[in-house]
């Protein structure tokens, strides 16, 4: 890919599956590219760091030092995809700062392709935040994640703009299974011989969605 993707996984709401998506995407990119840099912006309760310590570092946007440490790395076109698990505490500050410093425009200039993966929810805060984000992020770079486990039913009208990536709900026992800190999606694919299991198919479906997302990124490259 001639541009370096930066995936920002976010929601103004807690417990909507941000870290799950970050884990899935992180493992997918690691499997595909062999390298990925992940940033866990959840200082109050680091989550991605616990699951993928080998590729994840913590970051913060509470002060200027933290912003510099994070953003000055995100803006580098080095061919290594970045994944940011943006905690809901940091949501407002991150996008306020990103708007103020002109992150989207500068990224486009430097060959970096930010993609915002917004976890939908049925509340008004999510709908409003999505609408605000649409003013800052180009339509093709704002992808709504329809996490069936959270939305449960039809995606609200507010999220009908732009591409949608669907993540099917897993049965509770499987959710508990994948929530274990030692669980790895890729290891499961490699070691589980029975490809017909629900979890096997769920992981493959999600990896396929990410691949399609990447392809759509390549297609819109200038």
């Amino acid at each position: 890919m001639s541009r370096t993707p930066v995936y920002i996984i976010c929601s103004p709401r807690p417990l909507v599956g941000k870290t799950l998506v970050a884990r899935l995407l992180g493992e997918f990119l690691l499997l595909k590219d062999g390298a990925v840099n992940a940033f866990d912006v959840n200082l109050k309760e680091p989550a991605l760091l616990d699951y993928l310590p080998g590729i994840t570092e913590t970051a913060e946007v509470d002060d200027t030092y933290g912003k510099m440490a994070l953003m000055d790395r995100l803006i580098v076109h080095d061919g290594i995809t970045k994944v940011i698990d943006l905690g809901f505490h940091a949501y407002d500050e991150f996008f306020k700062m990103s708007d103020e410093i002109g992150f989207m425009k500068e990224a486009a200039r430097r060959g970096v392709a930010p993609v915002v993966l917004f976890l939908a929810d049925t509340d008004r805060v999510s709908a409003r935040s999505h609408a605000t984000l649409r003013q800052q992020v180009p339509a093709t770079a704002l992808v709504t994640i329809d996490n069936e486990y959270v939305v449960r039913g039809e995606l609200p009208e507010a999220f009908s703009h732009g591409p949608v990536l669907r993540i099917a709900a897993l049965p509770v026992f499987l959710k508990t299974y994948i929530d274990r800190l030692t669980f790895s999606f890729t290891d499961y694919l490699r070691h589980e011989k029975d490809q017909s299991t629900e979890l096997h198919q769920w992981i493959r479906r999600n990896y396929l969605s990410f691949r399609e997302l990447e392809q759509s990124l390549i297609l819109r490259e200038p």
Partner: protein
Amino acid sequence: MAKPVVIVVGADKGGVGKTTVSRTVLDYFNANNVPTRAFDTESPRGTLKRFHPEITEIVDMTSTSDQMKIFDTLNAVVPSVTVIDVRAGLLSPSLASLRDIGFLDAAKSGQITFAVFHILGPSIASLDEIAETANFMQGAKYFLVKNFINNTSFFEWDQATYNSYFHRIKDATEITIPKLNEMAYEQVEVASVPFLKFVANKGMNEDAANYSFVLRGYVRHWLANVWSEFDRIKLTDLAGSKPSGRGGEK
């Protein structure tokens, strides 16, 4: 040919951001392709000269020879705009000197365009300065600058009191300089380059620099806000020019 323009930036109080405002004015004219020269009266140190060495000269406003250097050359030199960064405590004496040498009369009769950027501090003393400065302002364009760059809060001011001072000067215009992120401000200080060069990630000699993208973004955003204030007061009109499409803004 456009009339020569003299812009005095000053305050009687120190540390209110006179040089910072002067720097934004010089960057603004530079971005709008208006030839400008500057005089720094902070002799012998010259903070403004550190940031804009090529167009700045350090002078002593109280010396006759330096007054001649500034005012006798207004019509003779190419730059149409002269910016004078007046050191703390010298605004009123400088204006008195300008009156004494007949400069204010020349401005009043329209031979010269004269503007004063009076940088206000948060204290009541700044309001007294307005009253003092008002006596010299006939024929001049008077801009009262509220400078929030260092997160100043104008806590000592009662708005009614401020208004009573503000309205003493006919056609006074208020300008607001917004706050700039402290670290961004500090990094520009350390780099000792004009704000414009910092935004463009360049050193003093146009060499490539390596400033933080975040800090450059903050400076770019802030500078765009400052310049929108200058656009609002039609600063380039003073020099008979129009704001041009500028680079470096968001």
